[in-house]
């Protein structure tokens, strides 16, 4: 049974709201301090990407349970411009907005599972999972 709660991203402060939601859920599930920081940072990156590139979208946090193994899933959905070259976007140091270009590859390293689906002009959906060790 998955329990999902979402935060709509429209302003910069919604990023903070998404982060707080993620931190609370992670705390409830019993993640350690370091993993909590990893999860909140990942949410922050994904929510900020929505804010910068797509301007609006939604970040959902889901509790997961796979054969007694608990985890947390982040789903970031937007209907923005999409990503032209996912391989390039996943490269360290690549950014189209003058940032550090560490966001997406960083999220992949922060989380255990990472999946990205994007079609140019239609939008992007990123799913990332962290399991409790």
């Amino acid at each position, binding site marked *: 049974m998955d329990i999902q709660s979402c935060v709509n991203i429209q302003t*910069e*402060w919604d*990023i*903070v709201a998404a*982060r707080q939601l993620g931190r609370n859920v992670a705390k409830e599930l019993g993640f350690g*301090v*370091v993993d*909590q*920081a*990893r999860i*909140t*940072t990942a949410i*922050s*990156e994904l929510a*900020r990407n929505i804010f910068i590139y797509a301007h609006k979208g939604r970040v959902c946090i889901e509790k997961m349970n796979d054969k007694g193994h608990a985890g947390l899933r982040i789903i970031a959905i937007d209907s923005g411009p999409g990503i032209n070259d996912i391989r390039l976007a996943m490269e*360290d140091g690549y950014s189209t907005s003058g*940032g*550090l*270009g*560490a*966001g997406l*590859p*960083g999220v992949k*390293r*922060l989380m255990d599972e990472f999946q990205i689906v994007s079609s140019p002009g239609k939008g992007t959906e990123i799913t990332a999972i962290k399991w409790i060790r």
Partner: protein
Amino acid sequence: MNSLIINYIDNHKEHILNLWVEKMKEKADDRVLRVVSNQVFVGTSREFVEMVTSNLNDENEEYSERLRDFAEKVVKLGWPISFVTEGIQVFSTIVYDGIKDEKLINEEDEMKLFYGLHKWTNPMTNEIVNVYSTTWERTVSLQKIALQELSAPLIPVFDGISVMPLIGAIDTERAKQIMENLLNGVVKHRSEVVLIDITGVPVVDTMVAHHIIQAADAVRLVGAQCMLVGIRPEIAQTIVSLGINLNQVTTKNTLKKGMEAALEIMKKKMIQVGEISEDSNSKII
């Protein structure tokens, strides 16, 4: 039609009031009842009825003045806005039902009565919503100013050493202020070393890191050194996972360690009073 309504309310003031207080109490949730005592509740309701009936007697200006006063009072009491607007609706329903029950009007005029009540309660609702939103807007803008004032202070602690403690989330607006205050402060206080303390920053993501790197670069351009202190272990781990390169910035895990390093750079050290240092470079501060 107005005189009919006003007469009815005038004649049945107590009855309406009792009925109204009773109905509103049913609707009031714990939140309202916790902040308002029974006496205040009935008192305010009475005042409201008095005010409502004065609507058609008083001059328009005097009335709107009273309405504003009342709305401000309710806001101060902390009643939720939905409760107050609902109160007005319930009030007009009671009056409507009362007039209908006593057969003071015939059926054809019912629509007129309805319209009359509507025309009379609408400005009230508008004014109350207006006062509520103005109060909120004022609070929000005051808080925004208050937040801005504490967002990025640069504190000179010793000759040539300044500290900028950061607490809370960093957004674009704040990042701009950090940069500005940092550069202005460095020039104004003639700082040579600036310590940025991020103990109170909950999340350091790529954007925050980017701003810190840029700030450190800019500080270097004006001839000072930037040190990043207060990096908690979990933050250190996420920075490494993200693959952010902070090599250009000196980092320490606590403000204390940073301060010691800064004093060293300034060729100063702190000593116990009474101790005489043999090192000619150091002086008592």
